[in-house]
Each structure stands twice: as structure tokens, then as C-alpha cells.
């Protein structure tokens, strides 16, 4: 499946669950913004590798809210320790969705090690994550997203959809995320 199809299904599942959605830097955030913008989406504009970590802190702080993270293979490989931390500290309301296109899709599709056979679902299990699933067809993605699997690795095709850049400033992204999600009342 194309990555934007997977993102569209994930955004739909997140909206149905009233979940907070943390989205990885680059084209994945742009694709999410174009298919389903919500104030509950947090679009990363920097700090590559930290989507899974931001979502983990949020899920621990807000145990009553579902938190979904859309991450990528290149970004997870940059912060592999996150899988060990998630294995031991992630709460039930946390779900990490790794969209694995086997390349750095936002910078010219240079291959990552998943292209050479590194299996992120096996790495997650070896790190101690108990509920891990691997999705290779669009038809099985939605049930996985509705499950309580902690880590879902989704194999997607390489390539970016022709979508514009996100028309929001960093301040707008975070302020509406915090305010409309009623996460924090500023004095």
C-alpha cells in the first residue's frame, strides 16, 4: 500500500478513538495534514527520531487519552533505545505505528537497513515489547489499529504523495494541540 493510504487509515482510526496523534517530521506530517487535519494532530517539524518519545511522555501524562504515534523506519533506527523504553514503560493507551518504506523518503529515498533485511517488528519483540504486529496489506491495518498492540510495523511503498507543506506555524501547531485537546490550561 502507499504510505498516504496507511496514514489515511491511521488518521481515521485516531479520529474514531478521539486519540491524540503525534506525526513524524517530513512528508508523513504533510500527508497527514492533507488527508485529515485535526487540532489533535501534533506535526513534528524537527527533532527527527523523537516522535515515539514525545508520544510516550504524552501517554504517561494523560493515561485517559489514547495516544497514537506515526513514525518511520529511518526515525526509529535513529532512536532504537526507544523500543526498550517503550517495552518497559509504555502504558496501555500508547500505540506506535511504524510506517516502514525501507528508505529515507523525505530526502530522496536513500535506503535504510530495513531495505537490507533489518526487521523492526523483531527488534521491538527482542526489546521486550509484548504486543507487536506486522501489517503488509491495507485490509489488515484497520483491525491492527483498533487492537491494543503497542507497536505496529506497517510495510508501505516508497514515494511521497504530491502534497503541500503544512500551513501552520510551530506556535499554531502546539497551541491548538494543547488548547483544543484540553491538555493544559495556561494561567
Amino acid at each position, binding site marked *: 500500500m502507499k504510505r498516504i493510504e496507511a496514514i489515511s487509515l491511521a488518521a481515521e482510526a485516531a479520529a474514531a478513538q478521539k486519540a491524540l496523534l*503525534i506525526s513524524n517530521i517530513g512528508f508523513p506530517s504533510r500527508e497527514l495534514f492533507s488527508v485529515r487535519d485535526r487540532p489533535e494532530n*501534533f506535526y*513534528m*517539524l*524537527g*527533532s*527527527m*527520531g*523523537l516522535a*515515539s*518519545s*514525545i*508520544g*510516550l*511522555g*504524552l*501517554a*504517561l*501524562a*494523560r493515561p485517559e487519552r489514547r495516544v497514537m504515534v506515526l513514525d518511520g523506519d529511518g526515525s526509529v533506527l535513529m*532512536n532504537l*533505545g*526507544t523500543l*526498550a*523504553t517503550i517495552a518497559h*514503560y509504555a502504558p496501555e493507551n500508547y500505540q506506535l505505528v511504524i510506517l516502514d518504506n525501507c528508505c529515507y523518503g523525505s530526502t530522496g529515498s536513500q535506503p535504510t537497513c530495513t531495505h537490507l533485511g533489518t526487521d523492526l517488528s523483531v527488534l521491538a519483540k527482542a526489546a521486550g515489547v509484548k504486543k507487536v504486529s506486522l501489517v503488509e496489506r491495507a485490509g489488515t491495518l484497520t483491525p491492527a489499529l483498533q487492537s491494543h498492540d503497542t507497536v505496529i510495523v506497517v510495510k508501505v511503498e516508497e514515494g511521497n504523495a504530491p502534497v503541500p507543506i503544512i500551513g501552520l506555524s*510551530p*506556535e499554531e*501547531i*502546539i497551541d491548538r*494541540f*494543547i488548547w483544543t485537546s484540553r*491538555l*493544559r490550561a495556561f494561567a
Partner: protein
Amino acid sequence: MNPSLAVYQGMKRVGINFATSVPCVNLQELLALVNGDPDIIHLPVTREEEGAGICAGAWMGGRRPALLMQNSGLGNCINALASLDMLYGIPLLMVISHRGGVGEPIIGQVPMGRLTVPLLDAMGILHFQPLPAQAEETVAAAWSQAAAARRPVAVLLDLEYWRNK
């Protein structure tokens, strides 16, 4: 005043209720205090940058976060401080064991020891270097400034600070 207790009481005074950490030998008593506090969610993390990311999410969720680390870890989280915390306006209290100064027995600590203050200055990150007698107040004030300005702030605790632990 016990140097670890002084920092802990400063954190408690301003309601720090979330912490991530990568250990330093000089932080061990403080880490034990934080870890044993039922009002603080504490995650030992694998790398300081990961800790900065988790703290950012926790703040968005309403928590008051601190990152406890050695100054070597500052180098590991520069990009997160700049392109996450400073970009979006996310406060963070960094409690940093500052190694590599006078009396440092490990030569590998010296380069980052010398670079710590210049790096913080280059990034425009406020930093404080209290003695144990003022540490409670300084740590509390550091968080208050971080929260008010929505920026990271650092408290540097060098070898002299920990001399009487």
C-alpha cells in the same frame, strides 16, 4: 545542606512531577529520591535526547518535567533542545552533573566539561551554578523561568558542588 536533597527539595517546591534520567555517579542519591517519590513519574531512558523528547510530550500533557543527566548528555540532546523545545516553546528543567572541571579524574570528561557553558550560551539557554546552600532556591527559580519563558533552563552542578555528598 545535603547537595542531593537540596536539588530534590527545589524540584518539589515548584511541583516537578515528571522526570527522565541518564545516570551520573554524582546523581545517584538524587535519582533514588526521585525514583522513590510516588508523585513523580520517573523514566530511566537510554539516551538524553530520548529523555528530552519524552519530557516534551509530558509537558504537552500537563506535567512539569525535568531531565537529569551528566553534561556529556547535553551534547546528545542539542538538536532536540533546539528543534523541539525552542522551536515550539516547550519548557524543560535540566539538572546537569557538570563533569570535566577542576579535580576531574577522568580525562575523557574534560572536552565536554569545557564546552558545556559555551554550548549553553551559544543556544541562549539560561544556566545557574548554585552552591548547596542556595540550590533549593535556585532549582525552583530555574523551573519558574523555564515555565514563564517556555524554554529549557539548565542547573549545572560541578565537582565542587558534590564534594560533601
